């Protein structure tokens, strides 16, 4: 376990060093990513103060939700979501062999190889936005905060299951990179409170495809509203991860590399 963590950290540092080989480009990407992610909260501000807003949510609660969303998404995209993109590149070049000749779990190697240094900006931006919102929300309890953090970990787990399914899909249907757009579209559902969706969508995104565990559920927990949704979504995430792992490993078993 220690060796795996050390390897992951080393890979992350290598990827950052790799991006820094082109310093100007790296700096521009970081700033662009940061500015791009700021557009969401600014848009929220405009909607909130020029429309009826989001039912049952104050402005800072919505801001917290979006801060958490950026934190969880930023962490997931930085740490492992790149396996979807990496699967495509690796398979097209027939380079998956290079992963399989390492004495490590291939999924773990894939995660190490696909660290995305640019999403650190999204992750840090999300953290700062969440902290700013928390400071403006009255009576945030420690227990609420802890439950919120646990829910966020499940949110990361949800993204991990998506990464496994989409990566497996790429293994099966190489060059199907349109699935990345689907992935982004699914993720965006979690950017808004559950209350804006119809009841059926609310159930779907809590129990079957529990995207609300990414931000809405942790945000509610932090400002003191804990309900059964957290438990339902957590169980759903565990089931999805188990299915995702099964699918991923079954798929790579059938793998045949490109090139003669």
């Amino acid at each position, binding site marked *: 376990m220690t*060796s795996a963590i*050390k*390897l992951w950290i*080393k*890979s992350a540092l*290598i990827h950052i*060093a*790799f991006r820094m*080989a*082109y310093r100007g480009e790296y700096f521009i990407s970081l700033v662009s990513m940061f500015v791009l992610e700021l557009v969401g909260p600014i848009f929220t501000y405009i909607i909130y103060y020029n429309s009826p807003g989001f039912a049952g949510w104050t402005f800072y609660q919505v801001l917290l939700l979006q801060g958490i969303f950026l934190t969880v998404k930023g962490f997931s995209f930085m740490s492992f979501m790149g396996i979807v993109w990496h699967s495509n590149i690796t398979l097209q*070049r*027939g*380079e*998956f*062999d*290079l992963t*399989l*000749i*390492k*004495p*490590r*779990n291939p999924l773990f*190697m894939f995660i190490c190889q696909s660290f995305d240094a640019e999403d650190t900006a999204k992750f840090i931006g999300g953290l700062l936005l969440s902290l700013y919102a928390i400071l403006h929300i009255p009576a945030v309890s420690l227990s609420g905060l802890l439950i919120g953090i646990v829910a966020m970990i499940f949110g990361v787990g949800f993204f991990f299951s998506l990464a496994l399914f989409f990566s497996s899909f790429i293994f099966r249907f190489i060059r199907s990179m349109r699935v990345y757009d689907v992935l982004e579209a699914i993720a965006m559902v979690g950017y808004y409170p559950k209350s804006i969706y119809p009841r059926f969508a609310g159930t779907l995104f809590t129990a079957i495809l529990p995207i609300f565990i990414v931000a809405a559920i942790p945000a509610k927990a932090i400002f003191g509203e804990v309900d059964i949704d957290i438990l339902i979504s957590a169980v759903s995430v565990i089931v999805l991860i188990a299915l995702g792992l099964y699918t991923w490993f079954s798929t790579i*078993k059938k*793998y*045949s*590399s490109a*090139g*003669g």
Partner: protein
Amino acid sequence: MKIIRVNKLRKEFKSYERGEGFTEAVLSLFKRNVKISKAVNDIDFAIEKGEVVGFLGPNGAGKSTTIKILSGVMHPDGGSVNIMNYTPWIDRRKYVANIGVVFGQKSQLFWDLPPIDAFYMHKSIFSIDEKSFKTELDKLTKLLSIKEIMKKPTRQLSLGERMRCEFVMAMLHKPKIVFLDEPTIGLDIFAKEIIRKFIKKINNKEKTTFIVTSHDLEDIEHLCDRIIVINEGRIVFNDKTTKLKVNNKKYVTIKFYDKVNLTKIKKMKNFKVVKKLSDYSVRLEIDTSKMSLNEIIKVFDNGQKVEDIEISNPPISEIIKKLYRA
């Protein structure tokens, strides 16, 4: 001691065929003709510890598939493989810690970073202890003369320099078997020489087993004790490299004082013209079981005035080509 045992190994691939044109492209969206091809068809062989074995075959013969199965990358459809008491695709993680692989066309280095970073990454992946890593890196750095180049970004290195670094990557964890897939592809004659000397040295000193696939038959001639030739998924030759050369065919290169009379030579029995080299010289193939070398010299001494005769073995490439066609 046998280090690799392969029995009845089999691997099939499914591919799809369609006719030409747009209509066929649309129809293929709904129905495709499936074609099953046997890439590896019940092959058996064994390799001794410390052997250097050449794995040869034309494109699509099944050699890369076999190598991928042996290196734990691919699952076969049938048969068994025992390498150092491991089944590569089942015990993959433990097994690959004991092998090294160099792909001539795929790099394990990081394009924008110096090779030394990749070496340290390799150390973490293979959990090599600091002392052993330093000793091995020192040894390989000297053997392959990469002290200066390993600190430059990989993208600035020549192909030969990169390949030397790829070898370091493959050897740092002291593998017992090394698979080399086209290790000298695209290299100049000097770089090839360095690589070949390195392989020989490691093989002699550490008794490391090497399995080499290459289209460069000079690699095979210089390095391999034994050759396995595979064609259409089956082994068509498996013996010592020297055995491949020993047969009754000889090449006779004759240089005349006057212009070559090719029509006359072609009419002679027991000779086959391989190539007219110039207006004054020609290369022939003869079968020494039918005609002795003395007799050959006599035949030409009575005819055109001969300036020089050179007798040699046919190049290995010609013999291999015949095996492919068989």
